[in-house]
């Protein structure tokens, strides 16, 4: 565990990669988000926790373009952005790994990494006959996995359905982190995994952070959150109840803030 070198004070001068100000989102008469602000700095793991209905999912959906906030502003690297679809967020380098694992089981690892952004062969074969550069994509997939430090996936030609849950999660995370993305959002990445596989995924999160890629982690699992997060954003009743660090507060404190029994 080397997560403790992070200095919250230092971040004050750095520019946040992703910035949200006063996001409001209502669903009819139900208030999903009631003026939530959030900053994500380079090279940090920001966890978002909160009870059911606290607005975690709505917040994430607004950040990743799956929902459009009623008001409030979003900035990526200081530039104001308006996401209408998840693709818009992806164009700005915000990649999301959804809870239900957006991988295609029958396709192999390399095909999954390049799914939706396949590369064609150079020359007439690719231009006219639109032939895929399967070999090139496999090679690049391998390079990308090495670069991200994902060692659980040795063979990129294995169909994803033959992988374990942790390896599948690694494929999904690798796809989100690969190819020049700026922010990786992980929605409950350990929810369906065993102890050992959860640890693999948490290690992967740390590796991404250590390579400078900021991660937003949504989780119900307090030990996991306190294990990897640099800062913890606590949602309560549609608002940000507090932003704490694993050093400043204990798990019990966090749960108390989450449930409204205490304030930060």
């Amino acid at each position, binding site marked *: 565990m080397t997560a403790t070198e992070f200095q919250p004070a230092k971040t004050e001068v750095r520019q946040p990669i992703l910035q949200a100000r006063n996001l409001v989102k209502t669903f009819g008469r139900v208030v999903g988000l009631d003026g939530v602000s959030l900053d994500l700095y380079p090279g940090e793991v920001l966890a978002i926790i909160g009870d059911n209905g606290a607005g975690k999912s709505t917040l994430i959906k607004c950040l990743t373009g799956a929902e459009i906030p009623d008001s409030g502003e979003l900035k990526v690297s200081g530039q104001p952005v308006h996401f209408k679809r*998840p693709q818009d967020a992806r164009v700005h380098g915000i990649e999301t790994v959804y809870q239900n*694992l957006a991988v*295609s089981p*029958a*396709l192999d690892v390399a095909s999954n990494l390049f799914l939706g952004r396949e590369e064609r062969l150079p020359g007439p074969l690719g231009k006219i*006959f*639109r032939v895929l550069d399967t070999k090139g994509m496999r090679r690049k997939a391998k390079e990308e996995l090495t670069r991200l430090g994902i060692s659980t996936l*040795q*063979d990129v030609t294995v169909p994803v359905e033959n*992988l374990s849950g942790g390896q599948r999660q690694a494929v999904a995370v690798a796809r989100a982190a690969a190819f020049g993305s700026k922010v990786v959002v992980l929605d409950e990445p350990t929810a369906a995994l065993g102890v050992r596989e959860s640890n693999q995924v948490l290690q992967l999160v740390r590796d991404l952070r250590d390579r400078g890629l900021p991660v937003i982690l949504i989780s119900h699992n307090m030990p996991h959150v306190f294990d990897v997060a640099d800062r913890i954003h606590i949602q309560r009743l549609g608002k940000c109840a507090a932003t704490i660090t694993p050093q400043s507060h204990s798990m019990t404190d966090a749960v108390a803030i989450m449930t409204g029994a205490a304030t930060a």
Partner: protein
Amino acid sequence: MTQQQTAGPPAAGHADPAEEFLDRQTPLSRIRNILHRYPALSPAIVLLVAVVVFGLLNERFLRVENLSLITQQVSVVGTLAIAQTLIILTAGIDLSVGAVMILASMVVAQLAVGSGAPAPLALLLGLVVGLAAGALNGFLVTRFRLPPFIVTLGTLNIFIALTLLYSGGSTVRGSSMPGLLTWMGSTFPVGPVRISTGVVMMLLLYIAVAFILGKTAWGRHVYAVGDDKEAARLAGIPVNRVLMSVYLAAGAVLAIGAWIQIGRTNAASPNAGVDLNLDSITAVVIGGTSLFGGRGSIWGSLLGALIVGVFRNGLSLAGLDVLYQTLAVGVLIIVAVSIDQWIRKVKS
């Protein structure tokens, strides 16, 4: 991280002895893994066994004239199976393939004979009919989010009715058609075998579709959409556009099937091909393509069509009643789907 410890590529590295025990590879599970990786393998084995058995039962079976006849008998269903495979790969099903093909064949024949349109123009308009029918199916599936089964059950009846309304129920005989329309029925010798143009056309379609499915991004997207629609959408694949293009491609293939059908039967009859809708599904299913989508191969469907053709031909040469052929095909379907279910249970 732990390295791979268990033998065999699909096995993941497990340090936990209990997990390793559960994942142990038996010879049976190894076979299942291989069948899982190569979906066309099991129909290939079935076809080989069937050919050997029928060849032993009746020496006429393996004669070149008979084998050539089987390929001609298979050419229409084999072509429809291409369209059906594309749709089943997206986890859909098309009950209307035969009806679309017959509608297109009637339009082509009536235009050429009744209205005196030039043969190429008649064929082109047949292609338009196929594309329009595919567009209607695709539109209803993507825009109204209706299950393909229901959509094509509806359009099946619509297309049958349109065919009868348009043709007035009368058959157009091949002898009255321009030569180009019946060209698919003509045969040419290849060594001792006579091959029909229709069979060549069918094989060319298979090669083209196999290439597109295997080598292009579109092909990969077809599999991904059938595999897990939501996952494909989240990966940024335009799911509805892929589905629409699949139904359009199927419509185009069916129009070419109409041309082959005219040549094969040397006529265009509104009452032909009632069985073809289900026969095409039979060929695809026996060929190892999963009805749940995302898994299967186009070559499996060709093998499936050949298996049905070989069974029908072999059983009739063995002197069995036609009813036994139907019975055998029924058993084949159930066995094929059971094997598919068993293969799908594969876990590493």
